[in-house]
């Protein structure tokens, strides 16, 4: 008997980039994830994902609501996007309830309180990200902050990145399937799995030797460390330099562009201007911002 792990993927204030990044997963590929037994004996049953699912309208919301009631406490809720909380949620709604638009915030609270665990996928869901950038026009908040305000306590993992590398998402889920939810000491202070976010970009960057020798690129395309072109690698935790992106073809600094700090709670307001040198005061002392 194959064990089914039900998953609901909720998209809120998002660009869908996290979903597209997951589609780019190489090993396992997305077909292995959706159709095959991801680990022998276990199948991820993706019940709701608006970008992929065959049905439309009322029938798919019914699936979401059935999963919530019939598998109470047994499904994983994945949230992609920040939560717009301004003006009673008028800036973002999904379907209707009792003839009125049903806000993303209300959906999140309902789905999270009945879930087994919550994965905040991407920097918007984890920390607010781009839609929460100043002046935060829709008062977007991270998933955890919205749940905390409502008194909902659930195991929660942040998997930030704009977008996150597909391996970070897939292997966090694989970890849950293989050995259960991560222990507290497997996550950092921002609830990111240390397995992927344990080191600064700057620590493993192949251009680190240039930094140490004081060889700095002066314009895009130059050799040398990109620190003076605005690289935020010294304050950004992620394994991009060793993991590389898009099936290992390349990564940001490999293409001659500075890291913009997208896995950090500080992204984008405190990691920008993206093409200006990081102020010395921030170097190696990330300023955590709270939303």
């Amino acid at each position: 008997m194959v064990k089914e792990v039900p998953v609901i993927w909720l998209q809120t204030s998002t660009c869908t980039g996290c979903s597209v990044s997951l589609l780019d997963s190489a090993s396992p590929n997305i077909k292995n994830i959706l159709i095959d037994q991801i680990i022998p004996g276990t199948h991820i049953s993706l019940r709701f994902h608006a970008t992929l699912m065959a049905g439309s309208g009322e029938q798919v919301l019914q699936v979401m609501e059935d999963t919530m009631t019939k598998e109470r406490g047994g499904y994983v809720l994945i949230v992609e996007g920040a939560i717009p909380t301004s003006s009673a949620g008028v800036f973002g709604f999904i379907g209707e309830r009792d003839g009125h638009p049903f806000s993303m915030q209300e959906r999140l609270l309902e789905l999270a309180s009945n879930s087994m665990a919550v994965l905040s996928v991407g920097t918007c869901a984890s920390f607010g990200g781009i839609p929460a950038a100043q002046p935060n026009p829709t008062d977007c908040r991270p998933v955890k902050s919205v749940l905390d305000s409502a008194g909902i306590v659930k195991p929660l993992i942040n998997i930030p990145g704009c977008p996150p590398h597909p391996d970070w998402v897939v292997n966090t889920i694989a970890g849950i399937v293989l050995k259960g939810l991560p222990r507290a000491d497997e996550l950092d202070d921002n609830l990111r799995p240390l397995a992927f976010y344990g080191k600064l970009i700057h620590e493993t960057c192949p251009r680190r030797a240039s930094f140490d020798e004081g060889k700095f690129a002066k314009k895009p395309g130059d050799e040398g460390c990109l620190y003076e072109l605005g690289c935020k690698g010294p304050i950004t935790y992620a394994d991009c330099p060793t993991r590389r992106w898009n099936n290992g073809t390349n990564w940001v600094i490999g293409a001659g562009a500075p890291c913009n700090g997208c896995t950090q709670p500080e992204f984008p307001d405190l990691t920008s201007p993206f093409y200006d040198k990081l102020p010395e005061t921030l170097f190696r002392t990330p300023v955590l911002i709270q939303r």
Partner: protein
Amino acid sequence: MSTIVIDPITRIEGHLKIETVVEDGVVKDAHSTGSLFRGLELILRGRDPRDAQVITQRICGVCPQPHAVACARNLDSAFGIAGKIPDNARIIRNLIQGAHIVQDHVLHFYHLAALDYVDIAGVADYAGGDAVLTSVREFIERGQLGPFMPRYEGDYRLPAHVSQQACAHYIDALEIRRIGSEMVGILSGKIPHSVGVVPGGVTCAPTIDMVTSFLWKLKRLQQFVNDVYIPDVFAVAAAYPDYFEIGAGCRNYLSYGAYDLEGQADVVQRNMLFKPGVTSQDMVLAPLDVSRIAENVKHSWYEDPPAPLHPSQGETRPQFAKQDAYSWVKAPRYDGLVYEVGPLARVAVNYASGDQTVRTLVDSALKRLNLPSSALFSVMGRHLARAISAKLLADALEGWLFELKPGEPTYVEYEIPEEATGFGLTEASRGALGHWVEIRGKKIYNYQCVVPTTWNASPRDDAGNPGPIEQAITGTRIKDRDNPFEIVRIVRSFDPCLACAIH
């Protein structure tokens, strides 16, 4: 009289509701509602203009690359260097955008549209030896069919073996589109939200190993487009000929043009793969005049300016609960008229401009299907035009690749001006994409984007004319109101992207 409300419309990007009024089985009226506002234009204000390259890509994770190109062209123009971008950079921008859009068209046909036509449940009867189809059959036998069930039922017409083959292609296409992303990665670091396209040019220095690696991934894409994607479009088209008769809508078409084929200093005069222009179902070309664009907001949740504004003067002042408003999407109009953008518009404009390659592809396709030229303006015509658009690009990329000159410059330096205005136009996967900027004190004072789905999913304009998708649905006969295939097939033929449309 009754209503059919579909909310959410799935297998598109973002949050869209379609509400229709149906009388005697025919749609009498349709309203399209975009239901997520983020306010990226407001977030851009006061920032370093270069940061728009990072932030505007986040308008959309499905089609970030065209935003990077539109933004770079916008800033090139504001910084006074639009005519000075090195040839290498022009070509690399084309390669990055082209590879991205070929994979995006494949994604649309197989992963967003196909499940409306292809019966994946039919794989339950598969008895052959193909390992992939066998694994799908085992998946079905286990009984948990999410995300492929439930769905609308009753109109899957492909013969069982064709349907099974199309399911196998759905899975092959997942890999092909991933390879398209890898091509973008080679030249632009990563995708979604790549980093290589910047004002002044591109960040990477081309090398021989980039060229060869890109080439052999490209050949996989090209082969798939020619040998699998296009034949599958014909197979679906042959089984659903009635979809060449519905979903036309406004019958006006606009393209900004894209992919500069030469580096001459006057950007506007450059020859492009996709030509700029406007046309209609008569296929007579008129030159594009960008000054004729204005965004209407009477039926959108924004404060009303005295008159519709050109995007260079555009405003974004959200105002929910406004009388007569029903969407976060604005309503851009050209010359006050409703225009469709997208692959069909690109193909129509190139056809009207006399492009022989496009004329041959379109004419031979219609002849093969035994259809009149008017059939192009339809649901199935959009799928056909998208496939033609993908083929044109996939075939062009190889030639561009070998125009690269490793060792030659890819970037030109600039100063951010104290005050300036700029605009950048291109063709995204889903159609005409424009960015406009005003810089004051070396910072962004105003940044406005008019995105393809802003056109296509727009609500009524100030004069009360419905948007292209609304018009395309209206007048359609719905065979089974519990399974309103016609509505979702029409909507999806536009490949809507709502994060883009509203931003």
